[in-house]
């Protein structure tokens, strides 16, 4: 038999969309997940008046990172692990979608909710009169888009050492607590000894925070004000760190991702 050529079928985008549609339906039928998706940003906005001098820019940055970690990353780890343990991923592997397409389609509803939350938060902050125009638009967008992509690959990589959806509460701690605490979000990294600050800048969430602060407020990680071309110059290091994490976690996923439970 001659090797068959793949006949022309629906486009790749339409095939992914078919799975995204099913995943979105599932999300809409999961009340807990829905309530969490709406309640979390509302809760964050409610805290805005309580936070005095951070300013609107800081609030948006904090909200973006908190959403990426607690919603995007955590949700995706539990979703991927649950789908794997329920043997749903193994079935999808018997179909025509490629592995990356399956993982992407599974992530899309969560990514859409993430985007919706970021917009909702920004709107809430604006309504409360705390909005300040960002210094630059490109860097914050890059931070959100690359940050979201990083959450997806960190989640797929985290499934390697997460046996059940419940154990994700423990296995996500290094990112949720460790990397977040040392990201410069809650205290400036200049408060740390220099060596430790350098290490902290290499953690996965720090570049996201740095890019957000650069773009929103024009401040570098050590508090220096920059503008114009210097802004992009200062963005090179965090961009490089972010891309390195993306490639690293992506390569680990490509090598070792498990589609079926351990037997």
């Amino acid at each position: 038999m001659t090797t068959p050529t793949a006949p022309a079928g629906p486009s790749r985008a339409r095939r992914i969309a078919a799975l995204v549609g099913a995943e979105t339906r599932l999300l809409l039928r999961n009340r807990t997940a829905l309530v969490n998706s709406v309640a979390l940003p509302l809760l964050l906005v409610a805290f805005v008046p309580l936070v005095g001098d951070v300013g609107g820019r800081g609030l948006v940055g904090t909200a973006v990172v908190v959403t990426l970690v607690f919603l995007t990353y955590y949700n995706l780890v539990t979703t991927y692990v649950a789908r794997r343990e329920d043997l749903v991923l193994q079935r999808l592997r018997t179909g025509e979608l490629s592995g990356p397409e399956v993982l992407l389609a599974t992530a899309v509803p969560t990514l859409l909710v993430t985007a919706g939350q970021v917009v909702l938060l920004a709107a809430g902050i604006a309504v409360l009169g705390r909005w300040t125009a960002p210094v630059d638009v490109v860097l914050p967008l890059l931070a959100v888009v690359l940050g979201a992509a990083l959450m997806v690959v960190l989640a797929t990589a985290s499934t390697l050492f997460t046996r059940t959806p419940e154990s994700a509460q423990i296995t996500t701690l290094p990112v949720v607590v460790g990397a977040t605490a040392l990201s410069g979000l809650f205290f400036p990294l200049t408060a740390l000894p220099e060596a430790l600050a350098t290490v902290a800048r290499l953690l996965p969430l720090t570049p996201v925070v740095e890019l957000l602060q650069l773009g929103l407020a024009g401040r570098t990680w050590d508090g220096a004000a920059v503008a114009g071309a210097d802004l992009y110059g200062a963005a090179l290091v965090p961009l490089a760190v972010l891309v390195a994490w993306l490639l690293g976690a992506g390569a680990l996923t490509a090598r070792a991702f498990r589609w079926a439970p351990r037997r």
Partner: protein
Amino acid sequence: MQPAPTRSGTGATAAPPAVEVADLRRAYGDFEAVRGVSFEVHPGEVFALLGVNGAGKTSALEVLEGLARPSGGTVRVLGADPVADRARVRPHLGVLLQSSGLPGDLTVAEVVRAWAGTLTAPREPAEALAQVGLTGRADVRVRSLSGGERRRLDLAMALLGRPRVVVLDEPTTGLDPESRRQVWRLVAGLVDDGAAVVLTTHHLEEAEELADRIAVLKAGRVVLAGTQEEIAETQPATIRFTLDPGTPAPPVPDAVEVVEAGPRVDWRTRSLQPVLAELLAWAARHGVVLRALQARAASLEQAFLAVADAD
């Protein structure tokens, strides 16, 4: 393993095998689950892998399905490597896993439509559901289906892409007899349309009903292979009858192994026809009635049990 019977003759019309497995090996760490298995399956043919649990059937199928790489040997599906040439093989391959999951909160129709949306040339979802008798359950959530209904939905999804090669891992486990027959009819229909089918099963009657050729796996090796008849012939035939009290016992031919001598007689022989002729001639000559006379070639089950029990 014996050579595949050539169904399509020779020359330009000869169909090359749809599935070619050569010296397949699969190891998990130090444990080798599949230890050099070879077989071919041609279009329009059903090939059954039999074996007790742990014989390596699923491990071997996972390589055909492109879900795992072999640790040795080669597998070709439609002439291509199911892992390396995944994109070319997939549209023509239908896989029913031994167990696989579905999101419980979607309805039967939603699941099938979504799956169809990911395929190159899908069947009509309604037609696929009708084939497995699930038309009336289209709007039911997957969570609420019975085990047998789930299995039939699995099968509908495996066949949704009009596959030329179909791999079925225990397709009828958990099905009631009526559903099982429905699945058998479906498989027969696939073969009539020229598909090549590889299946595993615990039910010997399923292999007898469906399979053109069978391989019995044990501890990762093929211990018996061929058509049902060829496999059954590896075991002796049985002759049984009961003698009335006072009747002289018949002489025992050389080719017979006596299991019971009388009054209920139970013989084993590899030359059923001559032994039976000799017995009947003796009975006619002496006017002896052989009550409840049975003469039977060995069954697939006997052959299977003989190798499954042997150490």
